């Protein structure tokens, strides 16, 4: 430590960390701009609204999924629970339930499924994968049974109860669209973010995911907090269900399967680790929007929607690979070679000359300015030439050493083979 050879470290670490936060948003923007340039009518307000609309239901369940994945668990039931809640709410509406209680019922059903998941995982100590696989199938069945395998239709705008659509998309009388749902997603996102970062629940979520035994032995009520995250996921599945009904009006019993995988994909794209202990809500939200940009952008390139799944898969794998690469990079050390040291030292001289140049400029000494400029350009050229020469030499030396080492290895192997034959 205290070695000048490794002094660049802090800077590098900063770069790596910064990259981690910037990469996913950057990918999102790049994708958006890409479709904007190559797609038909992509840079338009209606498209933006479409992107946001396509993000909702996955957005809500992906946030709940993020909580669970950070504890080291997984929830396979979010998609089907979401649809089952919506179907049950729709059936209630059909049987004359008023709008508000129906919407509350949707959230309650989601919460109930979340509670069941939580009980199985925390009290019965079932592996989350199996427990939620069970509720995934059960909720799908319940949705079909309650709806009698019929679709549920929610009121459209202008009809009684149709106001709830405005929660997610406000249409002004003049025909303008305001994606109010984006605001709601943002609000829920902020709440979830605050819960994760600044409440006991959130801190314990990370603690449990990092080391469940250490958390337990610190007196943390692990069961309670595990329970809580599954309940949160259930509540969010309910909210997601309402948003789905608002956007698509008609809900079919067979839908919902596979949504949980998009939710998991969103979390993973956003940097959440399936091993637990690592992840953020913002990352997940970015992940969701990356997927909805793909979903809306590919059709504008005349590629059909199923291309979305194809590219989402590629992005998920890419995100994980990138994360692994970054972690590996972050643990590597860059050692300054003599060439680097030389360049650093000379750049100080240049900085000195530049300071003098500024001084000369302010005093208006024109002959001095010209002289300094000349000095500067000569020095810069010199440094460039010397640096590239030194680098080339270093590279050659490295290659030579590697070649020698290879030869040594070959010799060694030959010797071993000979010995073994004897």
């Amino acid at each position, binding site marked *: 430590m205290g070695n000048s050879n490794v002094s660049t470290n802090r800077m590098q670490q900063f770069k790596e960390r910064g990259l981690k936060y910037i990469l996913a948003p950057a990918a999102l923007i790049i994708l958006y701009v890409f479709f904007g340039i190559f797609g038909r009518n992509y840079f338009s307000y209606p498209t933006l609204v479409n992107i946001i609309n396509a993000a909702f239901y996955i957005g809500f369940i992906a946030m709940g999924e993020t909580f669970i994945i950070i504890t080291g668990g997984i929830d396979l039931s979010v998609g089907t629970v979401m649809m089952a809640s919506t179907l049950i709410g729709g059936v209630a509406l059909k049987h004359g339930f008023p709008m508000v209680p129906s919407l509350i019922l949707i959230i309650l059903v989601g919460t109930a499924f979340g509670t069941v998941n939580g009980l199985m995982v925390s009290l019965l100590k079932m592996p989350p994968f199996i427990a939620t696989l069970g509720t995934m199938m059960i909720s799908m069945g319940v949705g079909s049974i309650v709806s009698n395998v019929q679709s549920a239709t929610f009121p459209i705008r202008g009809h009684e109860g149709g106001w709830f659509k405005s929660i997610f998309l406000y249409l002004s009388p003049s025909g303008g669209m305001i994606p109010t749902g984006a605001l709601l997603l943002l609000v829920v996102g902020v709440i979830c973010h*605050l819960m994760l970062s600044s409440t006991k629940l959130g801190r314990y979520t*990370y603690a449990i995911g990092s*080391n469940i035994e250490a958390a*337990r032995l610190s*007196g943390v009520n692990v069961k309670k907090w595990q329970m809580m995250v599954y309940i949160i996921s259930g509540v969010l599945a309910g909210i997601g269900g309402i948003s789905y009904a608002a956007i698509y009006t008609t809900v079919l019993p067979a839908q919902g399967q596979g949504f949980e995988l998009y939710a998991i994909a969103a979390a993973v794209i956003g940097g959440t680790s399936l091993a637990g202990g690592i992840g953020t809500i913002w990352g997940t939200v970015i992940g969701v929007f990356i997927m909805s940009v793909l979903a809306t952008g590919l059709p504008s390139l005349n590629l059909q929607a199923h291309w979305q799944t194809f590219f989402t898969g590629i992005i998920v794998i890419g995100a994980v690979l990138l994360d692994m690469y970054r972690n590996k990079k972050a643990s590597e050390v860059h050692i300054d070679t003599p060439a680097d040291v030389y360049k650093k030292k000379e750049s100080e001289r240049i900085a000195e000359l530049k300071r003098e140049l500024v001084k000369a400029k302010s005093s208006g000494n024109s002959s001095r300015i010209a002289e300094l400029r000349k000095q500067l350009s000569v020095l810069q050229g010199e440094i460039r030439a010397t640096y590239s020469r030194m680098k080339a030499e270093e590279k050659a030396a490295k290659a030579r050493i590697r070649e020698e080492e290879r030869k*040594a290895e070959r010799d*060694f192997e030959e010797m071993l083979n000979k010995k073994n034959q004897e």
Partner: protein
Amino acid sequence: MGNNILEMKNINKYFTGVHALKDVDFSLLEGEIHALVGENGAGKSTLMKVLVGIYPKDTGMIHYLGHLFNPLNPQYALEAGIGIIHQELNMMDHLTVAQNIFINREPVRGAGLFLDKREQYRMTEELFKRLNMNIDPSELVGNLSVGKQQMVEIAKAVSHRLRVLILDEPTAALTDIEISELFTIMRDLAGRGVGMIHISHRLEEIHQITDRVTVLRDGERVGTKKTSETTRQDIINMMVGRVIYEQPKARSMVPPDSPVVLRVDKLNAGKLVRDVSFELRKGEILGFSGLIGAGRTETARAIFGADEIQSGTIEINGVPARINSPQDAVQNGIGYLSEDRKRYGLAVNLNVKDNSVMASYDQFPKGIFVDSGKISRVTGEYVDMLNIKTPSLDQLLFNLSGGNQQKVVIAKWLIKNSDILIFDEPTRGIDVGAKSEIYTLMNELAREGKSIIMISSELPEVLRMSDRIIVMCEGRITGEFNIEEATQEAIMERATIGRQAALAGS
């Protein structure tokens, strides 16, 4: 002892922010047992990992059998005849002994379509016979004791026509008998010309078994000496660069009228806690001595609610306490510092702050949120007080050394303001400097009125720290000493009285 079989010269290795090995030289003779010692973080394991190709070296040369040697990975090194046995054993619990030994090179029959199990057992038996080991090749490795597992690992290494064997803290988890068996095998291997590198914290062993000793400090080689020409004190001095005296405590520091804070009566739990009864007084450091597997950790875990209790009562401050979970224990003011920090004490990918307040978020409310400003302030105070060396409070725990990690665990319980602290092997895997800091800290805590149960397998540590000593054997308490009358011999006698005597109630 014969020729130089291994020569490492000017080895340098850098990690993020750390120059871990600085121009280190090391050599090994044929048939030599060479001790490699140093404080934690001195670079012992790093040097060995460079030797077997787990880490690539940054600069330097390795000559092996007179040739330039550039290990690419452990498999390559092993095929060349250099094997390493890690501190943590790498065995597959659900496979048999023979399968573990011959994994990846199983004997086959029927044109290579089938595994030849019988041949595998025969080869394993032959190997064990050669090494004078008595292990059943068909036993599942998970059913063996740690000592036996280690022997299997050695047998596996030896079966690769080994010239150099590296043993990284091989005795850390072994009982005395297992250690002596291990040493017999090591001497036997040395007789066959295998050079061995023995990494250990236990200085007594070094004199028992090794020919030469190399001391590393802060990534540099301090020196290499013939073991027979050095004393224990010499080695310690080389390791720390300063003189350390380990004096036993002269007398109990507990005031005679100090009240009993914890009374355990006829506690039974699992297989290794049998009718354990004892009292702990305010301000007392109560040492728990005994061999590994005596039931001390199990007793601590039962008191802490980590494992289920079958019968018995626990009173805290004279009031019967119901402890069914660690949560209950923490509510009752008990804190437990596990012997296995990484598994049970810390979340290594969380930062210093999160780990320090893991037990006490309840103390930092700010409406519905946690008061992160206050958390930073309080954690900062404890980091200063305990002298935890970390670049920032946001540093992730896996970047800290063992000693500093342990201090973070201590901070956790101090912030929680626990009155009864159970230190289970508090200095395991911690370097000498941090060790004495932790001793000072424990004494201070006791003076302030905390009551401490200290489980330790190191007798000098028990004698140095305890006001009173309880000895366990086979799950029962077999001895109790006031510090004034305790000697290493007396404690060892009680700790080894064996199963029959322990059952007879000593």
